[in-house]
């Protein structure tokens, strides 16, 4: 063998060196730190988050940036295309579209966020009860969800609004009480899983309060899925509101919402496409940003779901 140049010293015994074999041990991170790291690395999701923050900021501040109010009619400036005075142009009644679009954002986003918070809450409670009691209660409660969702959610919303008559409050209620099925299923699954865990069984045998233990572990365990669900519910609610405006079940005039603006814009599409362009673009960009953020959050918070 060609190792003639080797010297005796080379064969001095040095023994094990376990440190070097394990030196590439990663710093351990908490779940949230880890999730945040992953989200930060996802440029698309981060960009979407920035867009959402800008849009929320505009909804709050934009109506103050313009001298026109959303319901002020200027009869000398009817149906104008975008210009230096009216940045988004005016509508067929001479109202400033910039003011109306951002006023509409306030309405649409208010409806979306409030409805989402309510339906996620219902979902958590419903799913929690179903999973906690299990057995027959669980079967019945889950069958109810199946039955409700065997016709599209929007049909229920429509029926509820036919009964309640349109308005902001009825729309919020209608969206809120029809959209909790998905959340309920997620929470139920988590509770069932938790109940099986050994520490719960151990606590039970020791006579500890199971409910408290469940709650204590349920909240951190379901936070991820809840946040993801919330993120996907918001654009759905925005879409639902816009859709209802199309059916004449939206928010009544003179209040503006993205949906009602888009709906009146469609009527004028052939003559003045800008009246549809701005509200439609807002709806689309907002939904796009939320969907992208939702995808990013799902990857960050629940790596198992990664497609």
């Amino acid at each position, binding site marked *: 063998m060609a190792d003639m140049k080797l010297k*005796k010293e080379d064969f001095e015994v040095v*023994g*094990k060196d376990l440190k070097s074999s394990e030196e590439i041990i990663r710093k351990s991170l908490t779940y949230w730190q880890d999730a945040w790291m992953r989200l930060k690395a996802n440029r698309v999701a981060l960009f979407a988050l920035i867009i959402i923050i800008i849009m929320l900021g505009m909804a709050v501040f934009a109506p103050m940036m313009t001298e026109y109010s959303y319901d002020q009619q200027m009869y000398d400036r009817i149906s104008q295309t975008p210009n230096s005075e009216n940045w988004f142009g005016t509508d067929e009644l001479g109202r400033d579209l910039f003011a109306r679009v951002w006023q509409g954002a306030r309405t649409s986003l208010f409806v979306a966020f409030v409805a989402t918070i309510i339906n996620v809450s219902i979902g958590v409670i419903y799913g929690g009860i179903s999973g906690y009691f299990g057995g027959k209660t669980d079967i019945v409660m889950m069958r109810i969800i199946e039955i409700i969702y065997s016709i599209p959610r929007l049909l229920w919303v429509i029926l509820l609004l036919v009964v309640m008559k349109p308005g902001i409050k009825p729309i919020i209620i209608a969206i809120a009480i029809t959209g909790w099925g998905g959340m309920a299923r997620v929470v139920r699954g988590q509770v069932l899983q938790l109940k099986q865990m050994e520490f719960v069984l151990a606590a039970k045998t020791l006579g500890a309060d199971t409910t408290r233990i469940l709650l204590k572990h349920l909240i951190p365990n379901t936070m991820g899925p809840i946040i993801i669900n919330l993120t996907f519910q918001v654009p759905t609610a925005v879409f639902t509101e816009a859709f209802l405006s199309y059916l004449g079940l939206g928010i009544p005039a003179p209040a503006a919402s993205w949906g009602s603006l888009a709906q009146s814009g469609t009527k004028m599409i052939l003559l003045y496409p800008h009246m549809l362009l701005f509200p439609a673009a807002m709806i689309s960009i907002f939904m796009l940003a939320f969907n992208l953020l939702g995808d990013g959050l799902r990857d960050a918070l629940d790596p198992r779901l990664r497609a």
Partner: protein
Amino acid sequence: MSENKNEKIDEVKNITESSDVLLDVKNLQVSFDTYGGEVKAVRGVSFTLDRGETLAVVGESGCGKSVTAQSIMQLIPMPPGKIKSGEVWLDGRDLLKYSDKEMEKVRGKEISMIFQDPMTSLNPTMKVGKQIMEALIKHQNMSKSQAKEKAVEMLKLVGLPNPERRVEQYAHEYSGGMRQRAMIAIALSCNPKLLIADEPTTALDVTIQAQIMELMADLQKKLDTAIILITHDLGVVADVAKKIAVMYAGVIIEYGTYRDIFYNPKHPYTWGLLLSVPRLDVNKDLRLIPIEGTPPDLISPPKGCPFASRCEHAMKICKEKMPEEIKVDSVESEDHFARCWLYNDLAPSVNNPVTERRARLNE
């Protein structure tokens, strides 16, 4: 093989005179591109296998044994995997020079493979019989009815009761052991020269494990198939393999006959493996000694011996230079190699803990 013979006539001339050799793998190197960098999974593996012989490749998970096996059939996903260099001679033809189209005629016909998890390696939506028939129709030009007859015959051969009914069933109607038998039936249907079994019993119950190993040994005799048995379980190897290759961090660190490896192992890693395996035949209060530490990260493998950091006999040179294969003494006067600096003339002599233990037990 007949048509390949004409195409590859030049290569056929290169066959080494001792044509007992079926498979000759030379300096195989395989890498995977990952986000973290290039993982050098197999770093220069060479071995030969005779016709009808069984070679066991042993090592812990991630040592490159499965990648080696799948590279022989070019089954590793490429990309991210790539075979960087090496030669795989089967009956005098270098398979690594084959195109994918040419490989199709080798896979299933000359070399077959069975995998670790019989639960997932059968297609759930295709009848088991049809899955056996596919290879027969492809390689043996059989008609559907002929193939079906043969499929029934194969299921009978692997010991499934009621084969006529079983061919019409789906995988979920089989138990785990039956599925692995069906996999063996698929693999052996075209009478291959070489069967690669990648951890064939790992996912099975202990009682079934023995049956499957017995079945493979039995069929090997009947059909004269060579077998490469990949496993992390030395217990499985004992009864079937004539030759054993011990792999660690992408290289074969010791190679020898079954008796060499079990009775006269030379590499400290092999010692570690043997001392950490529980054995039923020896005294119960014998202490098992685990191997401390973890294998190196193959994105940046150490330049010296990969086992050095876990080896109590490690010397300076071990960290500096990868040892060459050194021929060491064999129980059966056959080839027995180890990649270890301890067998250099300049190295201090070290007691062999495996032979020592044996001597102690015999007292």
